[in-house]
């Protein structure tokens, strides 16, 4: 994992609909998890659902987080649908 990028992971329905398990994205200073969602939604198509679609849950370094959570180089950021285990 580079010092200038962070990893974004997708799970379950999102992983399937985006046809993507993980991405490396540039880790610009001051970036939040919400900024990442905005950037990704701008790709259009299935990616649009990341903003204004069904609820997306966020984890940063395997801990639940919010759109306002700051992210930085080396972080593991995950986006996924509301959980349904048990």
């Amino acid at each position, binding site marked *: 994992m580079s010092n200038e990028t962070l990893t974004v992971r997708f799970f*379950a329905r999102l992983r399937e609909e985006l046809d993507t398990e993980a991405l490396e994205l540039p880790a610009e200073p001051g970036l939040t998890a919400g900024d990442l969602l905005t950037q990704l939604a701008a790709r259009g198509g299935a990616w649009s659902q990341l903003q204004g679609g069904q609820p997306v849950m966020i*984890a940063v370094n*395997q801990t*639940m987080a919010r759109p306002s959570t700051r992210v930085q180089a080396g972080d593991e950021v995950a986006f*996924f*649908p509301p*959980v*349904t285990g048990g």
Partner: protein
Amino acid sequence: MISVQTHDFDPAAEYQALRDSGPGTGAIVTFTGLVRDSGDLKDVHGLYLEHYPGMTEQVIQGLIDEATQRWDVRRARVIHRVGQLALSDQIVFVGVCSAHRGDAFKACEFIMDALKTSAPFWKKEITSEGEHWVEQKAGDRARSSRWE
């Protein structure tokens, strides 16, 4: 003890591990979840369970720690299966032992309710018509928020 695993588990062995927790144990409560024939869809004949490795174990450990702070919990064991499951298969086990039954019931139900809304597992129902990612239920969110 926490395990996320593809293979089946033996509730009798889990029960024994809880029972072997010393002479102060007076109550053991266990919950087991099974694959049911109707969920969001009818005539479900299997499930596929996906999870976020690493994070699931951390979240469950956090729930056990919280239960142990709130109630008298002498030992707790949680197993959650992932991958392909068939009708009536065991999905999840939560077992708690305590000196007192009230604490054992509360801790077991709390861990199970909180797991449903905070542990990163996702269930896909499989029927002869097709597959469907299960939606989180408002009822599950309400059950979980009772404990806040």
